[in-house]
């Protein structure tokens, strides 16, 4: 059954969420304040007639989007597509275009870092960014634990301490779990960047970096059988993206 009315506070909450997605923070705050005033000026029992004012989602969509919003949607779509591509690579055996993956990775890190600076510009008065340090440290800690586990497994395999039939599934599961967590963290960073603060894109950069490193590791493990060659190539092709990702995170935070 279609709702005919909505509680004033619920209306404003819903509207505020949608409008914060569509407009830059200052503009969104201004429009939300206007709607709060409109709702408070309305006589009655605190119920908003939806037929008269319009559903909060529709009402937010009616506010003309700016060029900035269209640019953001383009950035969001590209980053979302790249991250989905990396995630698919973790689960698809035939995802072997390593050079192409690297180009996508450098593009996404560059784009996220640049956009985070653009979004954070003009918000100098809001220095604190609650939740972001904890999220970054949490993901870094998780990354460190899973890297340790992966390295230990590789070492155990090279020393023949672990049977081959255990090593494969365990190491793939480890990398896939970390990849999925990084993917989710990257997306959380993307959404929070829009809704809260541009610096949240540093979480996206970190998430995508970890996701890409998982994908690269899986790719090498699938491609090569000689563990010493694997370690050599992994050192080269993981250290550089890891450094680029770290620089991206720092750049996004500054």
């Amino acid at each position, binding site marked *: 059954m279609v709702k005919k009315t909505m509680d004033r506070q619920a209306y404003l909450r819903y509207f505020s969420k949608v409008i914060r997605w569509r407009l830059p923070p200052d503009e969104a705050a201004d429009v939300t304040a*206007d*709607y709060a005033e*409109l709702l408070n*000026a*309305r006589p009655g029992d605190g119920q908003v007639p939806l037929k*008269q*004012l319009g559903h909060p989602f529709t009402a937010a969509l*009616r*506010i*003309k989007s700016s060029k900035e919003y269209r640019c953001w949607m383009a950035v969001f779509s590209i980053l979302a597509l790249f991250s989905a591509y990396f995630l698919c690579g973790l689960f698809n055996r035939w995802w072997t275009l390593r050079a192409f993956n690297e180009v996508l990775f450098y593009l996404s890190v560059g784009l996220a870092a640049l956009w985070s600076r653009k979004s954070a510009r003009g918000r100098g008065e809001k220095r604190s960014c609650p939740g972001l340090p904890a999220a970054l440290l949490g993901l870094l800690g998780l990354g460190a634990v899973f890297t340790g586990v992966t390295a230990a497994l590789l070492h155990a395999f090279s020393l023949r301490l672990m049977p081959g039939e255990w090593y494969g599934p365990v190491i793939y599961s480890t990398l896939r779990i970390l990849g999925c967590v990084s993917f989710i963290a990257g997306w959380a960073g993307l959404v929070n960047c829009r809704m809260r603060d541009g610096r949240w894109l540093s979480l996206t950069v970190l998430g995508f970096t970890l996701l890409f490193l998982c994908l690269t590791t899986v790719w090498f493990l699938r491609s090569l059988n000689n563990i010493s060659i694997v370690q050599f190539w992994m050192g080269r092709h993981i250290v550089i993206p890891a450094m680029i990702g770290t620089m991206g995170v720092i750049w996004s935070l500054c």
Partner: protein
Amino acid sequence: MLKKDLIALCLLHLLDQKDQYGYELLHILYEGFPDTQESAIYALLREMCRNGLIQWYKGDVSGGPVRKYYRLTDTGREKRQRLLEEWRRTRDTVLALGVE
């Protein structure tokens, strides 16, 4: 003349008469155009603000709470005049065609 222009003309006309606050404007226009939701009228109001046709200020003109009031700018007056002329032409054409 589009309905949007007609509502814009009414909005500018109302503000030409006196400064008004958001809800007051939206309520009057919704009474006149009940199939146009207030949120659509608000979007139009905001667009006009952005285009410099109207300005807002915080005030308590009617002695009530401090609210966001809207007033017409010179550009808004010119726009109102253009829309009014367009409306008169449309009305005359419709009448000349015998539509009543």
